[in-house]
């Protein structure tokens, strides 16, 4: 088994996440699909760090995790405030920027 399999798994996970973002209508599930795509990229970063024999890829994956955590917090707060005013979590219903 070679390290290429990790990259293939990462590619498959990324594609599944992309399909989920396009297919699902619940904003929270769409958000989870974005998280899956970030995780897939993290897996490939870790694999590249191993292939290169340097830890820079792991540090980059670490920064990706930090940014993803911040993104989750702000995104879920936005979803909550939209739900509070519109009573829906569907991304089809949020078609106006105001009111």
């Amino acid at each position, binding site marked *: *088994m*070679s*390290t*290429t*399999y*990790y*990259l*293939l*798994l990462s*590619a*498959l*996970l*990324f594609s599944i*996440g*992309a*399909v*989920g973002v*396009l*297919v699902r*209508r*619940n904003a*929270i*599930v769409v958000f*989870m699909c974005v*998280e*899956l795509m970030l*995780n897939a990229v*993290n*897996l490939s970063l*870790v694999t590249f*760090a*191993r*292939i290169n*024999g*340097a*830890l*820079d890829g*792991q*540090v980059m*994956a*670490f*920064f990706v*995790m*930090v*940014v*993803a*955590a*911040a*993104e*989750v*917090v702000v995104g*879920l*707060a936005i*979803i*909550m*405030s939209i739900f509070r*005013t519109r009573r829906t*979590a*569907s991304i*089809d219903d949020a078609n106006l920027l105001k009111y």
Partner: protein
Amino acid sequence: MSLLLLAQDAGLPGGADTGLGEGIAFWILGPVALAGALGMVFARNAVHSALCLAGTMLSLGLLYMAQGALFLGFVQIIVYTGAVMMLFLFVLMLVGRDSSDSVVEVLRGQRAAALLFGVGLAVLLVAAVGRAFTDVTPVGLDAGGANWNGNVPGIGRLIFTKYLFAFELTSALLITAALGAMVLAYAQTRAHAKRSQRETVEARLRGEHARISPLPGPGVFATANSVAVPALLPDGSIAPESLSEVIDRTDVQPAPVPSPDDAHALTGRPHSDRSGHDASTPHSVRGGRPAPDQNGSRADAVEGADR
């Protein structure tokens, strides 16, 4: 040097060549991760999606550890499956977990196009990666490599030297994100302003409520403050709004009016010439220990207690 050899013998993860154990781990965890991802996309219930994603992230964390990224593996488990997924579940419970997806397609054929796009993307990526990395020999991170002193010290050295500025910037990012979440999720906006005391009074006087004052509490002007006793209006009648719907209505017993010269009124002991009147009220019974020579009044008192 002997420690290094020992580490080599123990087979630190993330080596140049993948051993048998790592292969087994990959072929167990990889399908689990794929199944979790597919389950997340195709589960109708959002909570099931979240749980599937938690499984995927857990197995990804284990794969990180198998590749020598011990720190990232633990951070993945703690931050993602611990914190982020719990945050997702909390928001799901707040938003309503039965807010399932609408099956209606807003754009015609969008789902089929998305599936086609996904399959095309997967084929392209897999083909490109498979062709580009056929004869790659990984350098490896284990003993003698970048992990020679341990994974966490290596990452710490990089973070606090080469990537120090970026690391400091992440603190600003995290503070901004926390502030933004507080501002966005703050419930008391102008649309949902809480009424002040003055506004409540004005609303009452404007007639938004059924009556201006609160309901009279039980026993305000009554002789007892028990819930069973209704409030009396200033003219002595019973305030009907003070009657509890739960407790059965009880008759108001008039309190005995003691004469000022009756020294026995305070002790509750019936006076000899008023015993017949007082024995009919419970007040005469309460402290009633009549003198032995008042047998008749005592019998009356007991009879009143039986009543």
